[in-house]
């Protein structure tokens, strides 16, 4: 299903009034991919998307679409459509006229347009809304009309900028499934922008994690979650224990004075590293069986599991467990070797973005 490169961003840089927003970004998007730009607000996601859509021109670099250089092409000549953050519907037109806008410009026949309007309204579950005005629709409905208005043009790529950002939680979750269904039905490429890591993990084939205009990691949701490449990614995606440690030698890491067996190799001997351990990967055992021991300092019941803080070797470990250990009890902590994720400490300039963002 996933095949050749459809969009290629090569050495893209962009600054506003001397502030570098995107610095030498390289990225490709494959046909039929659901690619998500994930990162905190202000990290340059929208800017990157706008350059693909044609609303901004990069200061440097090239954008290749389907083998052609489109870096300088105006938006109306690009074979992609955008769903904007705040719907951006034409408030002076009916819903049907909104959807017909792109088709009328392409001078399609009336019969074709009418068919498409019907098809699109059905696709987004708003069949009877054709004659209404945009202002009379709720936020979620307007968002779906914005999607309908874009997809009737049969773009090769749909760009979506936080399309669910303004909706409440329940509706947002429903719409996530709607969007996945839509994408599968249409068989087109989606480039999706969000700052919500859960949304990104749920929907994407591939996630590009960004911070301060730099790509932090590109990979599948599983890869990003289980094998974050640096502390920023680990911290941004889900809850985790991120601890400074020393790589003793291959497959052995010293965390807070205790040696933990792990599976990573090639970091050298006695080199400083960061380790990431997900709270659900820590096993609570009897004190004598643990690699280190500590004392439970807080306990919250979270429905499926208990969330505990365990003070051990001077660090407060976040632990998720279905077994309860009361506050004040002494416990042993154990981690399976493959659940310890080792990351290089940031050294170079672009990795600096990682450090600055840690709280």
């Amino acid at each position, binding site marked *: 299903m996933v095949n050749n490169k459809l969009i290629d961003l090569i050495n893209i840089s962009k600054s506003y009034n001397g502030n570098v927003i995107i610095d030498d970004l390289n990225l490709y998007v494959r046909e039929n991919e659901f690619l998500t730009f994930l990162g905190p607000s202000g990290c340059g996601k929208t800017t990157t998307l706008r350059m693909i*859509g*044609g*609303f901004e021109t990069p200061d440097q670099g090239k954008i290749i679409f389907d083998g052609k250089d489109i870096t300088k092409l*105006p*938006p*109306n000549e690009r074979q992609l*459509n*955008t769903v*904007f*953050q*705040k719907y*951006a*519907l*034409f*408030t*002076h*037109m*009916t819903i049907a*006229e909104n959807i*017909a*806008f*792109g088709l*009328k*410009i*392409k001078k399609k026949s009336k019969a074709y347009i009418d068919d498409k309007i019907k098809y699109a309204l059905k696709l987004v*579950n*708003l069949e009877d809304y054709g004659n209404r005005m945009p202002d009379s629709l*709720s936020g*979620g*409905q307007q968002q779906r009309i*914005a999607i309908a*208005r*874009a997809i009737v*043009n049969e773009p090769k790529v749909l760009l979506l900028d936080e399309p669910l950002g303004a909706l*409440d939680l*329940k*509706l947002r979750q*429903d*719409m996530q*499934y*709607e969007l996945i*269904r839509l994408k599968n039905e249409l068989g087109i490429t989606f480039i999706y922008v969000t700052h919500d890591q859960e949304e990104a993990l749920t929907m994407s084939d591939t996630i590009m994690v960004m911070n301060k205009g730099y790509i932090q990691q590109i990979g599948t949701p599983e890869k990003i979650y289980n094998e974050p490449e640096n502390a920023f990614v680990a911290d941004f995606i889900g809850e985790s224990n991120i601890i400074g440690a020393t790589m003793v030698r291959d497959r052995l890491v010293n965390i807070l004075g205790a040696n933990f067996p792990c599976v990573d190799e090639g970091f050298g001997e006695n080199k400083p590293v960061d380790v990431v351990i997900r709270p659900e990967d820590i096993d609570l055992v009897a004190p004598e069986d643990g690699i280190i021991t500590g004392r439970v300092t807080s306990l919250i019941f979270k429905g499926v599991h208990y969330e505990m803080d365990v003070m051990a070797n001077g660090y407060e470990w976040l632990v998720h467990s279905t077994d309860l250990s009361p506050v004040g009890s002494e416990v042993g902590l154990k981690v399976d070797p493959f659940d310890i994720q080792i990351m290089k400490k940031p050294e170079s300039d672009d990795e600096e973005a990682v450090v600055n963002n840690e709280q």
Partner: protein
Amino acid sequence: MSNENPLRNEIVTEEKKTKKKKDSASTLGKSKTLLATPYGLWMAAFIIIPLILVLYYGLTDGNGNFTLDNLSLIANPINRKALWLSLKLSLISTAICLLLAYPLALVLKSMKLKDNSFIVMVVILPMWMNFLLRTIAWQNILEKNGVINTILEALHLPALNIINTPTAIVLGMVYNFLPFMILPIYNTLAKIDDNVINAARDLGANGWVTFKRVIFPLSMPGVISGITMVFVPSLTTFAISTILGGSKIVLIGNIIEQQFQKLGNWNTGSGLSIVLMIFILVSMTLVAKYDKDSEGTNAW
């Protein structure tokens, strides 16, 4: 299943929202009524009462008996000619203002100034000087031996004879009322979300189509209030025509003024005023109706 759920949820929340709105509206309503009282009194004193007086004088004769004679005086050839000229010059002035103001408003919008008060300032600035003074200044500029002709003479060019012509009056109207066209148009243009324009471009519209189908229709409310705010004062003015038209050119405003000021004939003056008001009401209704119609069929 998940396909239908979001829709239902939304409808429910939407209903709740409107209910809430209504509740808060009714409590707000009461305090609003209270706050509006001084304004209401002011309106009664300075708008309603004069209007009633005009209606009373306009529809009665000198003895206080009901009559339509005052209104039919508009058919008098002199009055009819003045009304016709007024209509013509106001329409021309309004059209010129629109043609000047719209591109200017577009340019102002494209400057994307963070602080709109700057634009308001620049546009309003000339109005800080008294309206009559400014018009008299134009008289001096356009006069036979005025500023323009002095310059033309120095350059050995033929003199311009604009003063005391309809052209001078149109110039005066445009000069005085242009800000009233720029501001409302600029305001509606500035309110258009950039992404709405981007969306049109995204859907394949080039610059011109984007303007024709999206930007211009969305700015219509501003255009309409601009037209109203230029057309109405142009149609009723007597100061501009007196100063720049001399005694030769008589607009309907001059005739009404004469009736009140020189002849002391309040009945005729009021009667003609009523006719003028009817003209304004009719033309504004036409403009508003045209706007509604064009909204219905705006998309091709």
